[in-house]
């Protein structure tokens, strides 16, 4: 595991300090220019868009995933396996194929528009495919299971007697959720959010196929530098910075979180 993970990472790091040859390829002259390129205002739009889309995806997954995971965990035990299986079944099909299926659902004469028009919800088809909405739908669809599974693990361990105690003490529904259920399932919420946020930040198939390749996310930018521009050093510098940023954010989070926990416990 270590070997398969760290050696490629080290290669990426090394390449990020090299420079690009005329036809692409890597020339081993040390330079920091690739990292300087990252501050190019050209790229800031991409960073902003990616973070916004990844945050929206995470929020929507949490909103949809929490009730789903909670109801699975509270379902009769023999049903839980079946519900979980249903959550996982989409993974048996390649992600690319499933994304193509969404193209058929979202297109102008596709399933979604036909359905909405036949139900009388609207009279004119709306342009769903090749928009930011389509990207968001695709990302939420793709990463929802990554939110549901850790949340399931957390809610399943939730001690119901504590929740009952809260009700007995005349807590409102909101404060039961906010002050009892949420703090107790926090590890699952955090794990789910991390598992959804990171891959959606680096997604490139979804923006390409559902967004119509009109705009880019960081994942597209990296793929673009590697496969279209053949600028491996710049691509490596972007990948490495992205990884470092995510790692720092996660570490910073855990650090402050630990401190807060200690504060709360009065240590």
């Amino acid at each position: 595991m270590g070997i398969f993970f760290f050696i490629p990472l080290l290669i990426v790091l090394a390449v990020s300090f090299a420079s690009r040859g005329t036809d692409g390829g890597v020339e081993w002259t040390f330079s920091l220019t690739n990292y300087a390129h990252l501050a190019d205002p050209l790229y800031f739009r991409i960073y902003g868009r990616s973070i916004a889309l990844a945050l929206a995806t995470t929020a929507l997954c949490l909103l949809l995933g929490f009730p789903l995971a909670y109801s699975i965990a509270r379902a009769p035990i023999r049903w839980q396996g079946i519900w979980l299986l249903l959550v996982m079944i989409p993974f048996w099909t390649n992600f690319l194929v499933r994304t193509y299926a969404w193209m058929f659902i979202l297109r102008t004469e596709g399933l979604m528009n036909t359905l909405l028009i036949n139900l009388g919800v609207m009279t004119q088809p709306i342009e769903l495919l090749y928009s930011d909405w389509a990207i968001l739908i695709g990302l939420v669809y793709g990463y929802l299971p990554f939110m549901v599974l850790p949340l399931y693990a957390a809610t399943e361990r939730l001690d119901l007697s504590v929740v009952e105690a809260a009700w007995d003490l005349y807590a409102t529904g909101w404060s039961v959720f906010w002050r009892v259920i949420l703090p107790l399932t926090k590890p699952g919420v955090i794990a789910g959010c991390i598992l959804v946020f990171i891959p959606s930040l680096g997604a490139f198939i979804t923006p390409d196929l559902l967004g119509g390749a009109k705009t880019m996310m960081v994942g597209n930018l990296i793929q673009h530098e590697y496969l279209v521009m053949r600028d491996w050093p710049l691509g490596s510098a972007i990948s490495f910075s992205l990884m470092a940023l995510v790692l720092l954010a996660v570490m910073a989070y855990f650090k402050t979180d630990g401190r807060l926990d200690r504060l709360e416990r009065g240590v």
Partner: protein
Amino acid sequence: MVNNHQMHTSRNRKWLAAFLCVASLSACQPTAEDGLKKGRTLYYFTWSDYVSPDLIAEFERQASAKVVVDTFSSNEELLAKLQGGATGYDVAAPSDFMVSIMVRQGLLAELALEKIPNATLLAERLQRLPFDPDNRYSIPYLWGTVGIGYDSNVISPPPESWTVLWDPRFKGRISMLNDQREVFGVALRVIGQSLNSRDPTVIGQAKAKLLSQKPLVKTYTSESYDQLLISGEVALAHGWGGAIARAMAERPSIKYVVPKEGGTIWADCLVVLKTSRNKDLAMRFINYLLDPVVAARTTNRLRFASSNRQAKALVDEQLRENPAVYPLDSTFDRLEWMADLGDAIRQYDRAWTELKMQ
């Protein structure tokens, strides 16, 4: 109760483990490195949707070898993957200007022309092409033009100029290739320049032109525009003639035009890679693909014109007369080959990134 609860938790953990395994599986993709078996296997690296499975099967029987097909979707991707150390491929199908780059990069093996007798049957227009006049490294295979496929029920009168792609009436019903050289080629021809321009000011002007077009564009795609035309999702598609000819077969109102400003003429060539371990088999495969009968069957299926001059007579009559497949004689003087631009390509790289970023 507690025990029961734990048991079922561990069962669900197993589900989680199974899920992770399957999830990681779906991320894996086979590469040419897989299945390097003892028997003779030929690895063919070509464009997506660019082979005829029955012809591959026929060659496999004739040569008692196995053919593994792997695909790319742009010349840049082909080069990036080869430079990335993807060895093991025997035959590839780069376009004209990419052949020059691959030769310069030392990626190609010299062809043993005595083993490829069908190479002498090249159509006149495809002989002595500037990027490899003596066919030392490459032989043209399929060729054609880039133009506009349009739905004649929606777009009338028939468009004559690329500027129809800037017509606000067709907002959201236009698709462009997802290919930087081709897209810039259109804008450059519209402003009256060569599609091989190296002048930064001119490239800047082309970029401004494309930025003004972007709000009208539904999608940049090099793969699914024929489907979009067929389903009526777009009414104007910038694309390769053959793919548009495929759309015509499904929806007869679709027509093809090479606009008056002119555009690209291209040829995808067959090359043998230097790292190939089966050069003899590779030459035999190239000769097979260039055989008049095989070439005609290829054209009938893919709707791209074959480079073999004897093949045209064997191709379905309808396709022979389809200007999307075999360009009209009158269009040739406004067609331009794409050239390898050397360092100037960085200008296009940057402009393309800027276009995509807005």
